[in-house]
């Protein structure tokens, strides 16, 4: 008896339907749209079959000419009576009936078929399916929920940095702007749905920006996303909030950082007011920090215990000549920033090097320094 119960339980579990993927829903909708083709195609097919068989009977089995005669009759081309037997009384009676029924059927069917094919739905669905397939290939990308002017600026910056991203926006009016702004990947669905986030590749994404112009909706998306990707270290969620209090709640619910747009803008503006005398430098640092200066970047590199850099003087490693990057400051493990470094400064364990340079050189420096450290540690082991 218990075995039977277990069997039934397993069967019930197996029968439990899984949530369909967004791509599957779109594919189903696409197939349903194609179903509309059946009636016009069947009508056209019947007219062609009746016409061809009729003329075949009249001509004694001449298929090619009978088919041709049917086409020119129902297609209103009318080159004449090209098939044997069609110029007889029976032939003309048959042609008259075929014309009366066939011409209507032909024009209606062709119009309906063309309309179905060029209907916005089918083309949009086809494009959406293709886009979802491409999104399935993405890895380490960002998801931007909501598309307004702020998201448009963000998209532009991400594009400049060659960072792939998927926009999710449920307002169909935004579709026009998404296409106008050449956004490569977008999904026009409600972003707080699990299936939508999964289709945007949340499991493989690096982070997410939530900007839905409504705190409640933002929270719904943050919570759903955090349930799918629980680790704050592996998946970053940045959100917008209307007040400081809401921002705090969002961070408690799963956002890595919630911004209050007005406050952010005021802080940035204040920075300009405070540095009116050194406008160029403060503007440069500002642009670097906000990712607007794509030619120059800053990299933070932590010196791990056992790294070959430990105990070395800055003039010994001479990164400026070897890797074309400059160490501008060192952050000590206690958080203190040493900005008075020179060639005589010694690197200590746990230091974070603040390196300044071109993005390409910085990437190379990071790779070389990390690889070297890894090699030394391996040798020690």
């Amino acid at each position, binding site marked *: 008896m218990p075995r039977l119960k277990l069997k039934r339980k397993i069967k019930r579990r197996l029968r439990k339907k899984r949530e369909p993927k967004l791509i599957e829903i779109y*594919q*189903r909708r696409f*197939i*349903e749209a*194609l*179903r*509309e*083709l*059946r009636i016009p*195609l*069947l009508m056209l*097919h019947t007219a062609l*079959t009746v016409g*061809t*068989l009729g003329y*075949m009977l009249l001509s004694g*089995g*001449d*298929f*090619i000419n009978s088919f041709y005669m049917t086409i020119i009759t129902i297609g209103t081309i009318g080159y004449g009576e090209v098939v044997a037997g069609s110029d007889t009384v029976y032939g003309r009676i048959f042609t008259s009936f075929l014309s009366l029924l066939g011409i209507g059927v032909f024009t209606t069917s062709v119009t309906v078929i063309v309309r179905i094919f060029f209907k916005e739905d089918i083309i949009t669905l086809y494009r959406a399916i293709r886009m979802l397939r491409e999104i399935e290939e993405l890895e380490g990308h960002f998801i931007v929920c909501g598309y307004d002017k702020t998201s448009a600026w963000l998209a532009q910056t991400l594009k400049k940095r060659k960072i792939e991203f998927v926009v999710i926006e449920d307002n169909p009016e935004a579709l026009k702007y998404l296409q106008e702004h050449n956004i490569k990947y977008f999904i026009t669905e409600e972003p707080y749905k699990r299936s939508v986030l999964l289709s945007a590749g949340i499991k493989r994404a690096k982070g997410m920006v939530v900007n839905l112009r409504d705190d409640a909706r933002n929270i719904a998306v943050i919570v759903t996303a955090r349930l799918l990707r629980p680790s704050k270290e592996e998946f970053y969620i940045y959100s917008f909030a209307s007040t400081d209090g809401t921002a705090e709640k969002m961070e408690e619910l799963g956002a890595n950082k919630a911004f209050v747009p007005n406050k952010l803008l005021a802080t940035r503006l204040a920075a300009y007011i405070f540095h009116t005398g050194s406008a160029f430098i403060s503007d440069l640092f500002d642009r670097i920090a906000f990712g607007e200066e794509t030619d120059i970047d800053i990299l933070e590199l932590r010196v791990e215990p056992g790294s070959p850099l430990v105990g070395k003087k800055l003039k010994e490693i001479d990164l400026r000549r070897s890797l074309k990057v400059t160490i501008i400051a060192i952050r000590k493990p206690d958080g203190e920033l040493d900005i008075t470094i020179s060639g005589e400064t010694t690197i200590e364990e746990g230091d974070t090097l603040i390196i300044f340079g071109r993005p390409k050189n910085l990437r190379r420096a990071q790779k070389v320094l990390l690889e070297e450290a890894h090699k030394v540690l391996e040798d020690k082991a």
Partner: protein
Amino acid sequence: MRYKKIITDFFILMALTTNISFIVSPNPYELVITVAANLAATILKIGEGRVLSTEMLASSLVADLHLIPALFIFFMGDSHEAVGLAQGALAANIISVIISIIETVLSAFTEEED
């Protein structure tokens, strides 16, 4: 009574039976009716979203791609080659009928469970 299923099954079986009769005694009318029945069966299968329906559509398309060239070849005078192609279409039609039966049995089980 599901009329849609009756019509679809009618054309699937009609495609198979006319295909066999053409192979047994090659005849121009028989071939045209076979092609017409096959095309009708294909059209009726368009837009069916189930897994087995897509298999059925695929097998039907295979049969069409055998029979349409067979039609032209037959009327160009090579009836032997046309019969050969019709035999190929027969294999696809048999598979189509088998899938149709499996689908009917499966849907009967699902209905019972519901």
